[in-house]
């Protein structure tokens, strides 16, 4: 009985294991296994098609493949853990086999080391601040983790302030810790975010779309009027403009961008530019 089940499972897995290259930019579901390019010979469904020409023989010729968010390592294959589109990035400097990841959509943020986030200070206890970043636990921020902070010279942070910082420790076993300086001790724009402005929440996918290098939304927004925006990877955006009305308009645009097509967006911007 157990043997039959094992055989069935194997055949199912073997049937569903598709080549990663063939599934790029398509929707993948959790539980699928993906084969890396070097493993496609003779393993693909049906094994049809020409054999890819191997310029360098030997299985060890592949570089390091990085499996990003939404994927996990499963033996020699990649196992999908989130549903979304599979993406791939070629290696720039030629080291390694590139990055694969799943472009999924979610609103709940999970702290990741190195991410820049906006947090709200909720408590001050002894030497650390407790900062709410939208995860399962509040992150801890030491008062020495600001630029130019010493034991005598404490930073001016109150409960309720907004902090832009990055994570140094963020895993599922420990409480996340964040700092407002980089590895050289410089602030690099991190720290307490100034007065006024408006903080609102959007989905994580929208943040990534807005922060992409060639984002049209931001270019158009930047032409409207002077403003300042801070994006946190935890789905929080802080905006500030000269008047309250402008700030609110900006917040509404950014929230609505999620579901608008490019044409609708252009219409709205042209209407705004007129008024």
């Amino acid at each position, binding site marked *: 009985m157990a043997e039959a089940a094992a055989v069935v499972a194997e055949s199912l897995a073997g049937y569903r294991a598709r080549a990663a290259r063939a599934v790029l930019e398509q929707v993948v579901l959790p539980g699928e296994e993906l084969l*890396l390019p070097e493993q496609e010979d003779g393993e693909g469904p049906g094994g049809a098609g020409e054999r890819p020409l191997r310029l360098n023989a030997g299985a060890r010729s*592949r*570089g*390091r*493949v*990085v*499996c*990003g*968010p939404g*994927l*996990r*390592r499963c033996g*020699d294959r*990649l196992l999908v853990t989130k549903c979304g589109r599979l*993406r791939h*990035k070629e290696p*720039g400097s030629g080291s390694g*086999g590139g*990055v694969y*990841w799943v472009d999924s959509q979610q609103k709940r943020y999970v702290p*990741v*080391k*190195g*991410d*820049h986030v906006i947090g709200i200070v909720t408590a001050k206890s002894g030497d650390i601040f407790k900062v709410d970043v939208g995860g399962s636990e509040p992150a801890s921020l030491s008062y020495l983790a600001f630029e130019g902070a010493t034991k005598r010279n404490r930073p001016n942070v109150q409960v309720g302030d907004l902090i*832009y910082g990055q994570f140094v420790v963020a895993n599922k076993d420990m409480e996340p810790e964040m700092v407002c300086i980089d590895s050289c001790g410089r602030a*690099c*724009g991190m720290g307490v975010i100034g007065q006024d402005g408006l903080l609102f929440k959007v989905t994580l996918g929208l943040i*990534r779309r807005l*922060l*992409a*290098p060639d*984002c049209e939304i*931001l270019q158009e*927004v*930047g*032409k409207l*009027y*002077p*403003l*300042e*925006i*801070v*994006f*946190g*990877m935890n789905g929080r955006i802080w905006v*500030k*403009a*000269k008047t309250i009305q402008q700030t609110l308009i900006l917040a509404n645009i950014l929230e609505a961008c999620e579901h608008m097509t490019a044409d609708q967006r252009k219409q709205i911007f042209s209407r705004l530019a007129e008024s």
Partner: protein
Amino acid sequence: MAAERKTKLSKNLLRMKFMQRGLDSETKKQLEEEEKKIISEEHWYLDLPELKEKESFIIEEQSFSLCEDLLYGRMSFRGFNPEVEKLMLQMNAKNKAEEVEEETVELDVSDEEMARRYETLVGTIGKKFAKKRDRANYEEDENGDIKPIKTRKMFLKPQD
């Protein structure tokens, strides 16, 4: 008599440095090996079969910053916050610079000018630290360049 038979010395005593100077190399090696055996037997080890870790070519990363080139999170438009605009240029340029190789740094001051400056600088700074008597030596040259300090005048014995 004690000279007739060798007194039995303990192993610990024999292991001491002053006792080993007289030994030859073979006995030394033997003693060392025995010591090592004793020490390594005391070490704990797991009695499991040796699992060979497969060299994996796949690295797991949970961060999106590796996957997509995201811009810096703070932005300012149309001069609302000049510091943030400066930061934007800096951070986004840093990202680009990591991909593209760095070009040669442009020199603000050419090498020749630098050498010329240093030449005069030595004299100027030297003058600052010279004593009052020696400062006179510095102003002698006609060209305007400051010459280095001359040799000090020693006492000359009168020749009768």
